[in-house]
């Protein structure tokens, strides 16, 4: 990944993280705000419930006070004090009185708590009021009470008053039911609702849960919350997931309602829909995603510009460095700023300048060294034949002066020697001349295996010459080798040089292996011997012109090979260890385009 892309990535990531962080913080703040608003609204609703409860209690209190003071109640009270036990005449009084005062419950009971007349259960005459002893003395405010009815039990706000016209009081107990109408009378903010659970035991019963419309929907979902309140008798809150959609989630707070004896009689459930919160959260998320998308686009654009601005000098520097690596030591990086990158570019330019100077100095040094080497080699090469020439000529001169009779014979011998050495000199000069005049390859399509076979065939006789130890030549040619474009003569010469080197390396005999193979898109030739091998230092200098490790070499053979291979766009390397033979590896590209270029 390029530096520019990395920089862009960092910019984009920074923007994304920033937007996500802001969205998260906003969501958190909104959630806390909503939770607080929920709490406030629920508290307000509970307060309203209590006010409504108190209002009803006052209404009931007022109604019961009025009834207790009414003529009807006084008539019954008088009957009680007159010990009239036949209450049949008053059987319907409670019902009629309750209807006129819009009470759901009303009972007249004597001083013993015996029901004389009951509006909610007329047939209950003569029975004792179950809660009578507990509240007979507490003639105060309204209270919550469960009332037995023929078809079940109802929860209501009750009040109790006594009519004391004589010694024996008449108790008037009445109230209003806490039912769906009561729930409907509570004004609710949008998204809130109330439900009432009538607690008739320690187990949950769905039919005991009502809402303003009647039976509550899916009451089982609230069973856990209600059971929790039943067990702990304290306020509890939970989130109810009514469906798979979070829009339908509802925070439900359960508030226990207790009677005079602190017994849990009912549970008020205040539901607060989370729809608004969920929708706001969704809007925040949408806005965050929108901002994120816009931020990413802007970040890409900005980061592209910024990264380009930042990385352009770096890229120019990299290009310059790449040019230097490719050999253009005069490459310069433009200095576009005065910041660190500008300093870096200036330093680079200075470095390349100095490198160039050093290179020139090195080239000069190498050239001098090469000339010296060449001179040394020429001197060495020429000195060898010159010395016999000198000796032969001196011998001729000495023979002419000292032994004229043998001069003819000596002359003939010396002439032969002179000619041989002169020939030797010519050979030496020819080699140098050949090295200096390496021809350019004549490209043609050829089969590398065939070249290798020809080389092997060429040296077959020398390998098995009787005057030297036998060398076995092995050809390991790849069957799938593709044809390449090359100059067959040059390639033949290069391979021949390598084979000659190998033969020189194996004076005691050995095995010469010529191997071809396919290496990706390149053809590979290996020439291996089982000679004494080379040291690492020898390997390093092996392709240096005029360097030789042999006693009679010119040091140009491998230089010529390397020159040929380079001219073919290939590469030559050597792999050797002392005592384990040497392997020269040549890698040649296909170069087929050279053939078509040559054709055209």
């Amino acid at each position: 990944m390029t530096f520019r892309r990395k920089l862009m990535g960092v910019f984009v990531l920074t923007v994304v993280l920033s937007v996500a962080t802001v969205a998260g913080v906003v969501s958190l703040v909104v959630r806390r705000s909503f939770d607080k608003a929920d709490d406030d609204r629920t508290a307000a609703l509970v307060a309203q419930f209590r006010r409504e409860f108190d209002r009803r209690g006052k209404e009931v209190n007022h109604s019961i006070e009025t009834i207790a003071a009414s003529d009807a109640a006084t008539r019954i009270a008088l009957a009680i004090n007159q010990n009239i036990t036949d209450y049949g005449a008053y059987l319907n009084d409670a019902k009629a009185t309750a209807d006129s005062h819009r009470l759901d419950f009303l009972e007249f009971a004597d001083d013993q708590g015996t029901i004389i007349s009951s509006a909610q259960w007329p047939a209950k005459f003569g029975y004792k009021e179950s809660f009578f002893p507990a509240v007979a003395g507490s003639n105060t405010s309204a209270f919550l009470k469960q009332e037995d009815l023929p078809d079940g039990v109802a929860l209501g706000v009750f009040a109790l008053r006594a009519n004391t016209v004589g010694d024996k009081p008449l108790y008037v107990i009445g109230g209003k039911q806490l039912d769906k109408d009561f729930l409907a009378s509570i004004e609710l903010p949008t998204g809130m609702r109330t439900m009432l659970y009538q607690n008739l035991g320690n187990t949950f019963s769905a039919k005991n849960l009502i809402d303003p419309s009647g039976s509550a929907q899916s009451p089982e979902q609230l069973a856990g919350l209600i059971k929790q309140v039943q067990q702990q008798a304290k306020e509890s809150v939970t989130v109810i997931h009514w469906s798979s959609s979070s829009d339908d989630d509802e925070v439900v707070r359960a508030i226990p309602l207790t009677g005079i004896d602190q017994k849990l009689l009912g549970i008020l459930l205040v539901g607060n829909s989370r729809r608004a919160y969920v929708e706001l959260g969704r809007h925040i998320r949408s806005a965050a995603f929108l901002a994120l998308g816009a931020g990413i686009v802007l970040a890409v654009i900005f980061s592209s510009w910024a990264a380009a601005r930042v990385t352009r000098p770096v890229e120019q520097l990299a290009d310059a460095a790449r040019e230097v690596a490719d050999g253009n030591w005069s490459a310069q990086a433009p200095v576009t700023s005065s910041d660190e990158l500008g300093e870096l570019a200036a330093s680079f330019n200075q470095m390349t300048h100095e490198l160039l100077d050093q290179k020139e100095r090195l080239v000069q040094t190498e050239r001098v060294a090469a000339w010296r080497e060449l001179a040394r080699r020429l001197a060495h090469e020429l000195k060898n034949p010159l010395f016999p020439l000198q000796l032969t000529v001196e011998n001729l001169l000495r023979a002419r002066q000292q032994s004229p009779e043998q001069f003819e014979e000596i002359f003939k011998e010396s002439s032969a020697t002179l000619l041989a050495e002169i020939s030797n000199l010519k050979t030496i000069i020819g080699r140098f001349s050949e090295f200096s005049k390496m021809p350019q390859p004549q490209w043609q399509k050829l089969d590398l295996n065939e070249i290798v076979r020809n080389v092997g065939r060429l040296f077959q006789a020398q390998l098995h010459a009787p005057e030297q130890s036998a060398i076995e030549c092995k050809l390991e040619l790849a069957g799938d080798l593709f044809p390449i474009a090359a100059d067959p003569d040059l390639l033949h010469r290069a391979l021949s040089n390598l084979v000659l080197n190998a033969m020189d390396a194996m004076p005691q005999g050995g095995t010469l292996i010529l191997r071809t193979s396919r290496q990706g898109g390149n053809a590979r030739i290996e020439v291996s011997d089982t000679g004494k091998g080379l040291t690492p230092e020898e390997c390093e200098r092996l392709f240096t012109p005029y360097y030789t490790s042999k006693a009679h070499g010119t040091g140009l053979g491998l230089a010529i090979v390397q020159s040929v291979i380079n001219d073919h766009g290939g590469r030559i390397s050597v792999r050797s260890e002392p005592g384990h033979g040497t392997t020269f590896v040549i890698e040649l590209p296909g170069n087929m385009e050279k053939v078509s270029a040559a054709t055209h």
Partner: protein
Amino acid sequence: MQRQENMKRTCLRWLAASSLVLAAMCASAATRPRYGGTLRISSATALNSIDPADAPDSLLRRNLTRLLFETLVIVDDSGTIQPSLADSWNSSLDGQRWQFILRHSLTFSDGSPLTSDVVAASLRKANPAWRVTSQADGITIELETAVSDFPAELSLTRNAIVRRGNKLLGTGPFVVSQWEPLRRLVLTARDDYRDGRAFLDNIDFEMGKPLRDQSIAFDLGQTDVIEITPEQARRAATEGRRVASSSPTELMALLFARDAQSEAEQKLREALALSIDRVLMNRVLLLNDGDAAGSLLPTWMTGYGFVFSADANQVRAKQLRSEAGLARTWTIGYNNEDMLARVVAERIVLNARDAGLNVQTTQSAPGDIRLIRIPLALTNERTEFSELVSAMGLSPIKLSSSNAENAYGVENALLQSRRVIPLLHLRYVVGISANVQGWAIHRDGSWDVQKVWLSGR
């Protein structure tokens, strides 16, 4: 001075005498029956047919039938069988063949004569099991089993003689002039009725009118006769309303939907019967205006009713309950529009709960137990039991005569079966406006409208 005094005394005597004569004349004019007027009667019961043979039996149907149709015989308030359309009757020695001689010169409301063929056809329609044949002057009825007091059965409403053609014709004192099933029936007096024309010109029945609406209409002077529920009778009387009531002629009872399936269930049913405080119900709910019923038929009718105790016995009820072991919850179904039935059913629930029994009221389903109200026919015990078990849907009973010993045996067997638990005997009560004169109600709750007349409103 003395003379002046005597003249003054003479004038005063004349004035006093004149006043007395005038007052006597006015009083005579106020109490003397007079013809004309329409008697307006309201009823909560609604009939969709006036055919006496159609079910269900009700006091309204009985009274309507008496106005439009007649039976061969009638049973008077003392329980004696009196001739009506039949002049006389006799039976074979074995009591299976009965012959009734019809009165002469009887006509239907359209003027057509009452023939023995019409009488036979009418009785065959109402009693398919009877073999009824007609003779020139009467009919003969052959029964499958001997019945010693068979004529009483002919006094039942369903045995009223009807000529069924395009419309129903009877020999009663009134004839139908307007008929809207379930809503209204207007009767017009027959001028040619054999016992003389009724004082009333018309009787206008408004049917299916709720009791509350009846009471309001009565107070507004829009109706002359209304029904009053038994529990409201005493209160209506104390409020100054003019009421007329029959003897306790309606049975309120609990009827189990099926026979007891085990001895344990028998005990549970007995426990339920013993737990119910009928006496308190009668005292509080009816203000002692009915009877706590330990028997199906009222004591005033049979004479042996007191043998079957109506007292509650919670101790024994609890004992039986514990002996019975596990018990399921019973449901009591009742007519939701009947307030007395509702209170009684709820009271039974409370009483049963005291005994450890689980009983609930229900309005949506028939229930394991039904709270029923059956008007008694009050003819004789045999006929009454027959009608009673028929009304309750029980198996017919075999009772050849109406002597008290047989009747007691039958009733005892019925009660021991624990299929039915008698609760109360109720009176039939009507409220009558002040302008209605001569109103009489028989012991069985039927009206004697023939003598009713209307004073000025």
